[in-house]
């Protein structure tokens, strides 16, 4: 069991991660845009960018609030400011995280894992997509499973995070040759093959960014 502590999921942690992610997403914007133009409607990148901007702009409003309140405000911002599939899903993620019990205590790594797992489960329920349907869940569900494993194991955290980076990347790439059964790409049948799912790519980049920043801390 990993016991290392302090600041995971603090409001300032969340905001600083959002800022990091903004940079990475902007760097990869053209690619993400093209992915959703290939097998979707082309708005995914704008949805993600809008969402990140809204979260970052919340900084002053939430920086002195308790975590639960902050998460709820982030959830409402994301939910009401993005729209589309990703708005509903990412909004659900934060809403559900905010419902984790005992958020007024210090959030250690395990607690943080628990929150993320809870969030991803809620997304799974909301979108009714499982692994293998060519969505962001192809990345998120295995990541969630790995987090679950990590939180009750003795693996070194940095090692664990490296494994997660790898899983996210593999699973993102695995969407390329899938037929889609959920989301817009499902309308394409065979023609969706050969294209990575945009949501899988943006989710993978988000995970990659967070993990790397934790590893390098």
């Amino acid at each position, binding site marked *: 069991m990993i016991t290392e502590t302090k600041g995971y999921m603090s409001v300032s942690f969340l905001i600083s991660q959002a800022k990091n992610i903004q940079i990475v997403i902007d760097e990869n914007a053209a690619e993400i*845009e093209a992915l959703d133009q290939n097998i979707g409607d082309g*708005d995914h990148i704008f949805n993600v960018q809008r969402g990140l901007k809204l979260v970052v702009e919340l900084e002053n409003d939430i920086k002195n609030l308790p975590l639960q309140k902050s998460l709820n405000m982030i959830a409402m911002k994301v939910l*009401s400011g993005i729209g589309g*599939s990703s708005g*509903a899903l990412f909004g659900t993620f934060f809403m559900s995280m905010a419902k984790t019990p005992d958020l007024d205590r210090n959030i250690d790594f395990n607690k943080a894992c628990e929150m993320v797992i809870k969030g991803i489960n809620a997304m799974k329920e909301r979108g009714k997509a499982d692994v293998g349907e060519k969505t962001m869940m192809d990345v998120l569900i295995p990541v969630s499973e790995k987090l679950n494993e990590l939180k009750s194991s003795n693996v070194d955290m940095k090692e664990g995070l490296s494994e997660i980076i790898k899983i996210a990347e593999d699973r993102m790439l695995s969407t390329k040759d899938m037929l889609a*059964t959920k989301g*817009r790409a499902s*309308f394409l049948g065979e023609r969706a093959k050969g294209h990575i799912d945009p949501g899988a790519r943006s989710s993978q980049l988000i995970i990659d960014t967070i993990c790397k920043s934790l590893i390098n801390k």
Partner: protein
Amino acid sequence: MKKFINNVDDFLKESLSGFGKAHSDIIKVNFEPNFISRKTKTKEGKVSLISGGGSGHEPMHGGFVGHGMLDAACPGFVFSAPTPDQMQAAAEHVDSGAGVLFIVKNYSGDIMNFQMGAEMYSGKNDSIITNDDVAVEDSTFTTGRRGVAATVLVEKIVGSLAENGGSLEECKKLGEKVNKNSGTMGVAFSSCTVPAAGKPTFDIGNDEMEFGVGIHGEPGRKREKIQPSKKIVNNMLEAILDDLKLQKNEKTLLFINGMGGTPLTELYLVYDDACEILKSKGIEITRSLVGNYCTSLEMQGASVTLLKCDEEILKNWDAPVHTAAMRWGM
């Protein structure tokens, strides 16, 4: 990108603002969260109909708010499903106590956001999902088919029933029948340009068309060489008839819908071709609608929708309607 636009971020807001001013006799545009409601309150006992979806399909749905059709419409950003708070606010605004029926096109984003909106709304409510696009295979294990132009017909026909006192259950039942009785097939000659993207969603050759295109410029069944109208229309109708399994002498409503960038003359030519083909197959056209109703920004192209009609459907189709984009009988 060539558009009448001041800046990408304000596009929707400014367009909605103009829409509100131009039709202040029928509707009111509410901001933050954005929704369009009727100018007058829903009368007591009348079920409220709320639809919505990404913007870019105008006049759908805002142009269908008014007597005999919708009570409210929730516009998302261009091609992005609206957010739950819009649906919640719209429902709270229009519900007169008889409940709310959400009319949702079958896209993951719309389904999820409407679901959340419905969960957030405390009043009685239910939903119908339109999925008339025969270009896409139907299945309960996948997202299934897209909801496209037949949504217009559902909104009109259920709108009339609601206006005339139909219960939430009756409205839902009729809406599901109209949806089940409808099939749509679209083709595109050119792409659309999402304002935020600033460039066309897809590239297409000078002699190509996208057969089975979606209303967001999503790829369809196949990329083909362009053909004479009669050939294209025939292929569209065959896909629809295959799906609807219409009997000879069955009564239908024929709806030729422009994608936004195709002139009316061409839509009427398509209508003419479709009439001839259907006649030769012994299918009767008893009602028709031709025009730009469920568009895809400036995309050039058209869709054909056939709706199998019974007395209930015809009666409600013919009933008076008074909205910005559809008006008759009053």
